[in-house]
């Protein structure tokens, strides 16, 4: 079964579902989660999509350093949930092209699955095509 799972984290509601599912999978498989947020090189005001339910009503993050702080907050929220559930987790904040960075993380840490939250496969085809490991889409 899976030992090391890459969880792609972003600001969409589906990402929160993927995080819950990743922690559940980790408990079942005794796997370690690598929760990873990829910041774009150039941050625009639209870099954050809809806030997750958990963050709804809170101030939206702004470009640049505020987006970085927001990303860390989301990662540490997941880490705190993992701790409560006795799940091993590592946090990564990368900057660059999303697909390239995720593939590099998979390669660097020899991960064996990628999990992400999305309502549609649109926009993910190239990553799925290039991924050397199983890709799980959670909606």
């Amino acid at each position, binding site marked *: 079964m899976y030992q090391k799972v890459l969880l792609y984290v972003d600001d969409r509601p589906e990402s929160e579902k993927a995080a819950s599912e990743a922690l559940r999978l980790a408990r079942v498989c005794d796997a370690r989660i690598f929760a990873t947020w990829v910041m774009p090189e150039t941050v625009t005001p639209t870099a954050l999509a809809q806030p997750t339910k958990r963050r709804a009503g809170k101030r939206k993050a702004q470009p640049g350093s505020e987006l970085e702080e927001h990303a*860390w*907050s989301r*990662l*540490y*929220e997941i880490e705190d949930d*993992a701790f409560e559930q006795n799940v*091993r*987790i*590592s946090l990564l904040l990368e900057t660059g092209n999303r697909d390239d960075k995720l593939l590099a993380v998979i390669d660097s840490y020899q991960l064996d699955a990628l999990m992400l939250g999305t309502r549609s496969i649109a926009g993910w085809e190239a990553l799925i095509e290039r991924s050397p490991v199983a890709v799980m889409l959670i909606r």
Partner: protein
Amino acid sequence: MEKLSAMMVQEAVVLDLKAQDKVGVIKELAQLLIARDLITDPDEFYAAILRRENLESTGIGSGIAIPHARTKAVKQLVLAFGRSVAGVDFNSLDNKPCYDIFLIAAPEEKKSEYIATLARLSKFLRREEVRNDLTQAKTAEEVIEIVRRYE
């Protein structure tokens, strides 16, 4: 949220850690908070912070580690800082030793402030100029001033 510099405890800033392993570093820093009566139950605090260290690495790369715990054993959200000249193995993902260690102790009920503090500190410490200045600091007051200047 309170500023990071305001959370720092001057008496819990160590510029030359004696401990050479991560458990020793955590205990050396926590002891300073215990001495200030900021941690009411040392055993519970150690259990919480070491359980987290066993589950994950709090080394975030670039020579930085942020061991942290949120537990009933803590009175208020505080930061301790330690600098290791030799470096300490925190099992960081980049496999490099850690030289600057910020320890966060938070009360159980302060979850959102605790998460925000972790996030702000992680962002803050990714800046190379911050790390360079921390390396150069000669006194506890200077360390706190560096945090105040850049936050």
